[in-house]
Structures are given as C-alpha cells and as structure tokens.
C-alpha cells in the first residue's frame, strides 16, 4: 500500500453530485452539481450555514442518506469505484473499514448500554478475522493513540462515565473511526458540541491523524476559525451549490464570492471595537455573595453530596453596560444568571435591582420585580411554546402585569417592528419561523415588559454566523435605544469581545478574572483565561478588511 504509485491521486472524487429533495421542499435539490476532491493527507473543509447541504454531502458519501433523499445524478468515486453505483451491502462493507465517520454529538454516537471498549472491538469483529486477544490489544493501542488516559480503565467504562466536556467521548468516537486505518475520514461538525479547550485538543488530534494515517479528511463545519486552524482546502456551500473553492489562505483572506464575503464579514472581529464609557453611570444591578450549591441525594450505594455550582459571587453592572460572562460548559454561568431571576433559588447572597434586594423577597413579592429583569434563552426552538401564537406569547408578560389586552396587542405589533419583523407575524405560530426569527421573537417577548436589565444566555450560540451577526446588531441597537443593561453569557470569546464592555471569566463556579474586554483579552492574568484564549482556534487568522480587497475581475 505504501508503495502505491498513485499516491497522490484523490482518494475521493465527487463529480456533479445531485441529491433531490422530496417535492414540497423549499428548493428542488439538497445538493446540486457538487464536485470536489480529497487527496491523501489533505483536510478539505466544507463550510456553509445550516441547510446549505454540507451534511447531506457527507451522508451521501457514507451511504447514510435518510430515506426521503436520493442521489439523482453524478458520481462519487472512491478508490476507483463509483459509490453511487455499488449495492448497499458493498457500501456497508466499506463503511468503518475504508471510510469512517465522526459525528457531531458524541453522546448519541455511542451506545449507552455497552462498555466503550466493546464498541471499538466491534469494529474489528465486524471487519476482520482477528482473535479476541488481538482485538483487545489493538483497541487499547488505539485508545492510547487518541490520548485517552488509562486505556484499561476507560475500556471498561460506559459512555456516561466518561469525562464531561465530552472530550473523552469524542476521542472514543474518533478511535472507532480510526480503528481500521480508513483511507477517508468524514467528520460532521465534530467539535461543535465541545468546549473551546476541548475543541483545540480534538482539532490537534485531527492534524496528527492526517500525518500518521495518510488519510484524507473531509471536515464539515460552520466555524471559520476551525477552518483557519486545520483546513488545507476550503469548499464554501450555499443552498446546495459550491460557490467558492480554493486553498485555505485564498478563501479566508481574499474571498471572491459575495456569499463567502458575507459569511466572513459576519465573523466577529478579534480586536474589540471602541466602547462607550460607562464607568460614571449609576449601578443597575449589584450582586453580593451570591451562592448556589445543589444537593445530590444519596442512593443505596452512595452518600448524598453537595455540588457547588456558584461559589460566592459578587459583581455590579452599571446602567447601559454590557457585561459578558464567559466560561466553558459547567462553569456555572447559566446557574448564576438563573439565580438572578430566581428560576433557581440561590442559597445565600443578595441581588439588588434598583435598590431592592430581590433575592430576599418571597416569591409572591418578587413577582412584580420580574419585569425589571428579563432573559433570552439559548435554544430558539425550545423557548417558544409551539401551541400558542406569537402574539399570544408576546402579550403574556404585559397582561400578567396588568396592561389591558388591547394595549398589549398594539405594543406587540410595535415590538415586531422593533425587532425588524413583519407585524402580521403575531398571528402565526412559532413553527413558521426560522431559528433567527424565533430568537427575534424571544427578544421582543422579553422587551414587552420594558425591563431594565436583559440577560442573553447564549442567545446567539445556536444561530448561523450571518444570522448571529444580525441578532447581535439588533441587541446592540435595542440596548442603545432603550438604555438597557445587558448581561451577555457566552462561551464564544469572539462574540464576547465584540459586544461586551466588561467581562467576568468563570471557572468551576468561581469568577476568576474580571475587567474590561481590552484588559482581560489583551492581558489575561489568570491561567484559566490564558488557557481559554490560547485554545481559540484560528489564532493566526483574523477577519480581513473586506472593503480593501477588490473582487477579482471576472472574465
């Protein structure tokens, strides 16, 4: 194999691939006339927003398309064979052996009922005739290769016992994919669900795999930082078609196609924009010694323990300030803000809004203070009740606080305009809107009670980059126009750098660093902050000034 004369021939070459969507879709083809090549030791990134057909391309190559979709044209040549022409059984024989896949969500890619070691062994059992002992030895070697500590112990672990941040689980998934030295590795958003420090490690792992395994990697992502970090070549997709393709440096720094330029310009800049001065303003929210721990009840085999989610936290936010709270999953940032609005009851501490300590009030007395502080949640699909019209949900707040229905409906229509949506949207149901539109509706709903403080809990994390930018701009505008104070919770340091005045960095429930964006990101003092900043992918790249780059004159 190593002396293969055609060493640099493409492993995978896709020609004019077309996949039809069922009738009644918003476009006739999920993927249309797509051509690309993956060579050995090359990482090709497919970038695009949700619905661009990038995942469909990956699934077609794996032969795992959902039943409703059928490839209708083109060819998919892998090692000289057209994968679209072979039978399902032959395709299945290639899967896992010659072509392997890493999925987005490691928790659902592993079967919770089996030990992870056995799940790796299964690959050998299916595709090879190795003896039991050999299979186990190979599995342990693989675990070592993907840098799992203590392979013997992890071999006998079940998926739920592996470490949080999902880093160990994703490593297992990668180990399964690599088990038989595949020629082609397809990774569908493999780091999207991971924390930034974990993401950095996994990306590093991919880089090494390319070197050690001679494989070609087709990497699907929506994140340009990730592209900058690992890609050799980039393919940009929009609505099922390739709009731009080229070496990573060209595409990222000198994008030609308007859509690529749009996407890249939507990536938040690494250098924070100048901010308005807020230090002289009155204090809108003052938190003193806020603390929360959860009790885990004991079971027959284990004593009850208590887990500290938020160590005593104190901070103050001034009027019209945007305070970012950054940290990885499990750092306690969501618990902290949920304590502020009493969705979770804090154990100790005070929360002063407009001079009133709302943490000390009983639930009934707190209710009228609810309209001062509102929240926008992360998941645009979960935060709207599917069974109520948008209008019904927009007037919920005002009506609860005694505004007459008619006035509230008027106000709802006005709010739709403020969040730049059609006024008639109030009569429709949430299913009829996209993620970005839903998030605008959520913003409108929060604004309906005229709050002084608005909490955005990862409010843009689930959105595509161009939509994310729109929503961020909208939030910024509204904040200025209505004089709001914004608490902005995010794990994305780029976003934090773009919208926040000051930031708090949280680690394991504690605030480890605080200061202005320029101070914290420019000159981090705490080791954790430094680790976070170091782990950000694509450090060598920043969004180019697109206005300075002319589009290449088209012939």
């Amino acid at each position, binding site marked *: 194999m190593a002396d293969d004369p055609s060493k640099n021939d493409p492993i995978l070459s896709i020609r004019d691939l077309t996949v039809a969507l069922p009738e009644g879709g918003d476009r006739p083809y999920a993927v249309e006339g797509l051509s690309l090549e993956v060579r050995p030791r090359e990482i090709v990134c497919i970038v695009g927003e949700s619905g661009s057909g990038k995942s469909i391309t990956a699934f077609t190559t794996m032969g795992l398309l959902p039943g409703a979709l059928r490839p209708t044209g083109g060819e998919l040549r892998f090692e000289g064979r057209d994968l679209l022409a072979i039978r399902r059984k032959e395709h299945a024989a290639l899967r896992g052996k010659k072509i392997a896949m890493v999925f*987005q969500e490691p928790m659902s890619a592993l079967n919770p009922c089996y030990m992870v070691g056995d799940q790796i062994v299964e690959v050998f059992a299916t595709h090879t005739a190795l003896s039991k002992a050999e299979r186990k030895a190979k599995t342990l070697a693989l675990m070592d290769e993907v840098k799992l500590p203590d392979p013997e112990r992890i071999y006998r672990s079940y998926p739920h016992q592996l470490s949080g941040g999902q880093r160990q689980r994703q490593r297992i998934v990668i180990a399964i994919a690599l088990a038989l030295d595949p020629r082609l590795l397809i990774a569908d958003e493999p780091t999207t669900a991971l924390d930034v420090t974990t993401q950095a490690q996994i990306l590093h792992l991919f880089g090494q795999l390319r070197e050690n395994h001679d494989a070609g990697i087709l990497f699907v992502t929506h994140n340009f930082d990730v592209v900058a970090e690992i890609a050799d070549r980039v393919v940009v997709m929009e609505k099922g078609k390739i709009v731009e393709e080229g070496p990573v440096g060209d595409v990222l720094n000198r994008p030609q196609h308007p859509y690529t330029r749009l996407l890249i310009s939507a990536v938040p800049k690494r250098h924070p924009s100048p901010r308005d001065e807020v230090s002289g303003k009155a204090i809108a929210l003052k938190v003193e010694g806020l603390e929360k721990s959860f009790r885990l009840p004991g079971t027959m085999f284990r004593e009850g323990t208590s887990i500290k989610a938020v160590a005593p936290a104190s901070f103050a936010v001034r009027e019209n300030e945007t305070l970012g709270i950054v940290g990885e999953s499990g750092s306690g940032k969501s618990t902290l803000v949920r304590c502020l609005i009493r969705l979770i009851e804090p154990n100790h501490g005070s929360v002063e809004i407009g001079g009133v300590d709302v943490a000390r009030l009983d639930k009934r007395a707190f209710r009228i203070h609810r309209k001062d502080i509102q929240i926008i949640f992360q998941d645009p699909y979960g935060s709207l009740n599917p069974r109520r019209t948008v209008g019904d949900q927009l007037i919920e707040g005002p009506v609860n606080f005694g505004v007459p229905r008619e006035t509230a409906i008027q106000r709802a229509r006005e709010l739709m305009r403020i969040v730049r949506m059609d006024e008639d949207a109030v009569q429709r149901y949430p299913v009829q809107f996209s993620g970005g539109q839903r998030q605008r509706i959520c913003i409108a709903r929060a604004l309906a009670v005229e709050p002084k403080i608005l909490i955005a809990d990862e409010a843009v994390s689930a959105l595509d980059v161009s939509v994310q930018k729109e929503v961020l701009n909208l939030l910024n505008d509204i904040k200025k126009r209505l004089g709001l104070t914004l608490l902005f919770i995010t794990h994305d340091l780029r976003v934090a750098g773009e919208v926040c005045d000051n930031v708090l960095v949280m680690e394991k429930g504690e605030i480890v660093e605080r200061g202005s964006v320029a101070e914290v990101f420019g000159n981090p003092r705490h080791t954790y902050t430094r680790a976070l900043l170091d782990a950000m992918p694509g450090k060598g790249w920043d969004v180019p000034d697109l206005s300075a780059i002319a589009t290449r004159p088209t012939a």
Partner: protein
Amino acid sequence: MSATASAPLSGKARLTPRQRFWHRARHHRGFVFGAVVLATIVAVAIFAPLIAPHDPYLQVLSDRMQPPVFLGGTWHHPLGTDALGRDYLSRLLYGARISLLIGLVAATISAVIGTTLGILAGYFGGRVDTVVTFLINVRLALPVVLVALAVVALLGGSLTVVVSVLGLLLWDRFAVVLRSATRQVRTIEYVAAAEVLGASLPRILYKDILPNIANHLIVIATLEMAHAIILEAALSFLGLGVQPPLPSWGLMISEGKAMLLFQSWLITIPGVALFLLVLAINMFGDGIRDVTTPEGRD
C-alpha cells in the same frame, strides 16, 4: 444534521399546527376508518329515537326469537327479536347510547383525576411526586374487575354506580403517562420564559403545560374509553352492570347466552357492534398519536 431533518419539512413548515394535523390525518387510514365508524355510531346513538323501527322496551311475546333478515327473517324485524319479543335492531341502536355514555363519562372522570395528579406530580416533583406515585401504586394494586364487582354488589347495580366506579378506577394510565410527559415539557425553556414573564402557576399549567401534553391525553382518553365500554359489558354480562330492561350491549350478550347454541346471532350481533366500536375508538386514538407525533409535536 439539522439540514437533513429540516430540509424535507420546510414546505409543510409554513402550515399552522392545526393545518398540519388535518393534512396528516387525511392520509392516515386507521385514523380515517376509526373516525368514520365512530362518527356513525355516535350519530346512531344520538338519533336512535328517529331511526329505531320499534320501541326497544316493547315486548311482543308472540314474536319471540324471530331470526334476522340474513337468516331468513322478515324486514319487519331486520335483526330479529330477543327472547321477550323485543326488536333487536332497536335495542342495539339504543344500546349504543349506553355504551358511549359509559365510555365518555368514565373516561372523562378518569381523565380529570389522572391528569390533575399527573401534571402536579410531574411539575412539582419531590414530595408531591412521591405521594402521587404512591397513589398510582395503590391503584395499580387493585384488581379493577374485582373492585367494581364488589362495589356494585354492595351499592346495587345502576348506570350511575357503574359509571362512577369505572371513572374512579381507570385514572392510573392518565397519571403515569402525563406525569412523565409533564416532566419533559417542564424543562423546556418556554416554561421558564413564562415564569420569568410573571405568569401565575395555574396559568403556566393551563397555557404552557396542558396544550403540549394534550396529544398524550387524547390518546389515553380513547384507550380508556374503550376499556370502560368493555368493562361495562363484562359487568353487565355478570349481572352486576346496568340492570334490565336497559338495552346495554353487554346485557344483551348476557341475556343471549342461554341461547348460544340455538340462536347464536343473539350474541353475535351485539358482540360485533361492541367489537366495531372498541376497534374504531382504538384506531382513532392510535391515529391521533401517529398524526401528532413525532414531527407533529413541534
């Protein structure tokens, strides 16, 4: 991944939940069959006085045990007559009223009890949940038929007693399923959003929880309705259900059992009617489940 899931749906995604429901329902065979049969039986029950050819209670002893038309009888009594010479078709039509009434009322009483307990347990968890779970376990430990028999034997059989006893005994499935459905819905962020917007607890339960577990509720309601109808028939058959001369289908089977070997249609006719009704209700319920889940849930 999201592309795979959302792309084929985007055309239908513009419909409101209700429009989508009807769109799917029309193409679901079981749902259509169940709905049509059920609607027919309901119509028959409502209009029984208008369509029944005879008085169901009128005994004409000279016309005893006339066979139905398809066994050589006359069109004067299309389904023949029973041992007391009462017109069988008329009794069957009036009997539909009793079966449906028992099914509806018993299922409604059960639904109210079970849904209340289930939602409270699911929403509050903790101690409330412990108490409700205990109640469910107690209820599950009671053999329904035995308890019903004992109560009816003590209080005497009448329509009211049978309906109340069944209503008080069939709430367990409502409580179990709606408890877990509520636990799921409760963690979704729109519930938190409503709380943050100052919605009172009853309002959250009514506007945000109930509509989102309603499809489970409807499905179980149909199942329990069928269950209640069968139990009534069983009780009546054993002589402890509704009392003669009321024309309940179960009672008709019971009265016909003595003639099983000679006049088998006395049992077959109400038996088939009962079978059709229960089948239709179950298919209707299954249809609703298929039509509202899984994608229909959003």
